[in-house]
């Protein structure tokens, strides 16, 4: 019989895991046994400790709250959204572990448990999904960052990579010589092949090792005359390993023996044939580009082109870090170090091309997201330059010099991959290449006479950070700014108002607010709609609390949580949400090779969409705090 309703339920369910793993006929069959349930807000579907029913539930529309008592309070375990499945018996317990209540008006589909379990048992993809999602019973609205990658953690390759459990790669083109070779000949061999280690063999059996260190010792002990042979200098204790040695194992052996080369033999002992040599360098390569290596490379770069190349390598490293789910704050720390090195080197290169040294001390500032050390991908460059005050008659010449320098700097950064700022907020703009007293006057205007228009500028300029130059100039500017701030309360109100201009990004009907026109129509602007309210909220509150030297938005929130115990929970979730959003944006950016700012919602998986939505939750509360504290409603 034709069954339109079952077909519709099928169409709905097949979008979501685990139903998407089911064969069409199986799913259709189970859909024809479905039923539809309508619930009012606060209606209870089942209670904790009640015996399992013979059906389980999928949210078609609305939301279901799962709760369980934790000590004295009722804890919300999860909010099930459209497409979420709950009430399925997965473990051997006979009673529900949570209480399910309708969080709002909700329509549920129910499916027979027994029939579905039969499919689940037969289908590995389904059972894996179920096990993974129910094993992580720690879901709660603010800690759901990982849920999307649940399945990934079950892939052995990925975790193996993190631990160095894969087989080590080593050189199999071994250079050997006999113990009777003269030392000079051995050294010449090493020079010729540009290697640091010779394996000394008799009939392919290793009898010793000669490395740079042994040669150094030989020179020190004066055994370099022509009648000395390798045998006199080599170490005879050969440390060997099997061909299947893992990276981590090899690293441990090297560390334990304090050596730099490991000899790979057929059976891992010194009595079989040599098959390869594994050096410390091979381990470094195995662990990928280490940040330390990259910094070294940046510092040695002689050309902008090389900087660009190195920075591309850094992007690969970033991708791997994200894959391995390292904490984003850790990644940010590493990358801000790398970025500082990059900026400093770029400045050094720019300076070297100038006709003469700078006439007075100066400071190069990173602004906006670079100033907050929150930038992982290529974005626009926002920067500015401060130079020490000079006598009025010299000002023009000095300014000319620094404009020229800034121009070179901006061009180089552009070459490396940073786009020019569309609003021209760059050091090469005469408006933002100013002497210290000019800067003080500029900030003073912004603070004393705030207007909605100047808020955009101050929003960027108040997050500045020194990248190159003299600390004193920045220190003086900062002191002057905070001095002015302490006398102006209207500035905070304007800034708070500005922070409120983007409403929380989820509409009343729980949909994403997307761009309604322009090139990014129907895409979600994660920067403006989700991150900007958090960034500006953190900025105004930390200026209000006189927090200096903390530029990072999530760190600002963490500090604020300490300062305001009454809002601790809110600020902590803001910090968390910001980190999650940043990670999200970076991942999107890497995936699409852009700044990650605009997200096509259709490309997101359901998990990702939910994850995003959960990050928005603290936004509304944060804006309420700002609204009340700074009395923004009276501002025109």
């Amino acid at each position, binding site marked *: *019989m*034709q*069954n*339109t*309703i*079952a077909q*519709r*339920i099928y169409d709905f369910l097949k979008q979501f895991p685990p139903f998407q793993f089911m064969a069409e006929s199986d799913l259709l069959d189970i*859909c*024809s*046994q*479905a*039923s*539809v*349930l*309508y*619930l*009012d807000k606060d209606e209870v579907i089942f209670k904790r400790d009640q015996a399992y029913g013979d059906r389980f539930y999928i949210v078609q*529309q609305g939301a279901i709250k799962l709760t369980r008592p934790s000590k004295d309070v009722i804890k919300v375990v999860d909010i099930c959204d459209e497409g979420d499945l709950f009430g399925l018996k997965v473990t051997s317990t006979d009673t529900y572990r949570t209480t399910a209540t309708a969080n709002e*008006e909700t*329509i549920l589909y*129910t499916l027979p448990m027994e029939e579905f379990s039969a499919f689940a048992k037969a289908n590995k993809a389904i059972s894996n999904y179920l096990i993974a999602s129910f094993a992580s019973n720690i879901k709660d609205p603010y800690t759901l960052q990982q849920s999307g990658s649940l399945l990934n953690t079950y892939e052995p390759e990925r975790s193996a990579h993190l631990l160095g459990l894969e087989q080590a790669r080593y050189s199999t083109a071994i250079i050997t010589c006999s113990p009777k070779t003269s030392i000079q000949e051995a050294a010449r061999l090493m020079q010729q092949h540009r290697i640091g280690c010779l394996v000394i063999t008799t009939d392919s059996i290793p009898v010793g090792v000669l490395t740079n260190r042994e040669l150094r010792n030989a020179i020190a002990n004066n055994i370099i005359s022509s009648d000395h042979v390798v045998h006199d200098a080599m170490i005879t204790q050969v440390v060997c390993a099997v061909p299947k040695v893992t990276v981590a194992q090899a690293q441990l052996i090297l560390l334990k023996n304090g050596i730099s080369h490991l000899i790979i033999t057929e059976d891992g002992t010194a009595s079989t044939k040599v098959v390869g040599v594994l050096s410390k360098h091979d381990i470094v390569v195995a662990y990928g580009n280490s940040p330390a290596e990259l910094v070294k490379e940046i510092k040695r770069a002689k050309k902008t082109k090389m900087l660009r190349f190195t920075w591309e390598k850094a992007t690969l490293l970033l991708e791997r870090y994200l894959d391995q789910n390292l904490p984003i704050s850790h990644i940010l720390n590493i990358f801000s170090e790398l970025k500082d090195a990059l900026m400093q080197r770029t400045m050094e290169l720019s300076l070297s091309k100038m006709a003469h040294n700078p006439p007075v001390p100066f400071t190069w500032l990173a602004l906006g997201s670079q100033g907050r050390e929150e930038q992982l991908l290529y974005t626009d460059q926002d920067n500015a330059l401060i130079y020490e005050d000079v006598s009025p008659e010299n000002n023009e010449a000095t300014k000319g010099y620094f404009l020229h320098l800034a121009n070179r700097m901006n061009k180089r950064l552009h070459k490396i991959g940073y786009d020019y700022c569309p609003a021209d907020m760059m050091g090469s703009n005469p408006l933002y290449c100013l002497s210290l007293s000019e800067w003080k006057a500029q900030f003073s205007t912004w603070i004393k006479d705030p207007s909605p228009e100047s808020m955009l500028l101050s929003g960027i300029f108040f997050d500045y950070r020194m990248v190159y130059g003299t600390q004193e100039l920045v220190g003086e500017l900062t002191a002057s700014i905070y001095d002015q701030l302490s006398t102006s309360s209207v500035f905070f109100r304007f800034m708070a108002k500005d922070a409120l201009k983007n409403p929380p990004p989820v509409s009343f009907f729980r949909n994403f607010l997307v761009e309604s026109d322009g090139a990014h129509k129907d895409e979600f602007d994660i920067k403006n709609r989700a991150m900007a309210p958090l960034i500006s909220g953190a900025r105004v509150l930390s200026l209000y609390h006189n927090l200096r030297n903390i530029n990072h938005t999530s760190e600002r929130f963490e500090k604020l949580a300490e300062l305001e115990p009454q809002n601790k929970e809110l600020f902590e979730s803001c910090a968390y949400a910001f980190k999650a959003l940043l990670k999200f944006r970076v991942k999107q950016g890497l995936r699409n090779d852009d700044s990650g700012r605009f997200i096509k919602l259709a490309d997101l998986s359901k998990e990702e969409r939910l994850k995003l939505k959960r990050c928005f939750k603290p936004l509304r509360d944060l804006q309420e705090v700002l609204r009340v504290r700074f009395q923004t409603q009276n501002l025109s």
Partner: protein
Amino acid sequence: MGLFTTSPQRSFPPFWTQYLAAFAREKSQAGFLGSTLDGKKLDTTRFVVFDTETTGLHYKEDRILSIGAVTVINNEISIAQSLELYLKQDIYKPESAKIHGILRNGSYEQVNEQEAIEKCLEFIGTNILIGHHIGFDVAVINAALKRAQLGKLKNRVLDTETLYKRLVHPINRSLQEKRYTLDELAEALKIPLHDRHTSAGDALITAIAFIKIVKRLNSDGSLTVKQLFRKN
């Protein structure tokens, strides 16, 4: 020939006698003075939500294209207990196909009118019928029954429009007199619309509307089935 005897040469098909017998049984259980509605509980009663699609709005001339029905017990709509029938057409109006999307001799499995009525009566039994503007659907089925030389439907019926109006405060007199289409009702009750103009889809939307309305009428939990039939 007695006054109350029917003509002996006329014999009814078994499904019709069964249909009538079920009602007679129910009535005898309720007793001579009692109503079949007495003591019926809201959470155990089986309601059949019902919708027909037709070739037009003249119940005598137009024919049934499809019949869709779902059952509601205790606020739950069971898909396993649903009915969806498509009828073979003798009269066919191309203009109505646009709305209903049911093409003449389409790829659906089709039954003739006689079979449709039989299946339909078996499905509804003595249950209370729910529908939006159900008067029309009942008239359409009755016309089909008449063509088969059978009597009229005996089921009690409830109209979701009438029920919905009980939610509207009497002070809004203009709304009391307003006619609601199923689309308007769904919008007022915030029910997402899809599958409009397939009888099964309309029956599902009507069923959700019915559940929503009854929940609102039953805010204190004391509503009985009998009270649903109360005249305003």
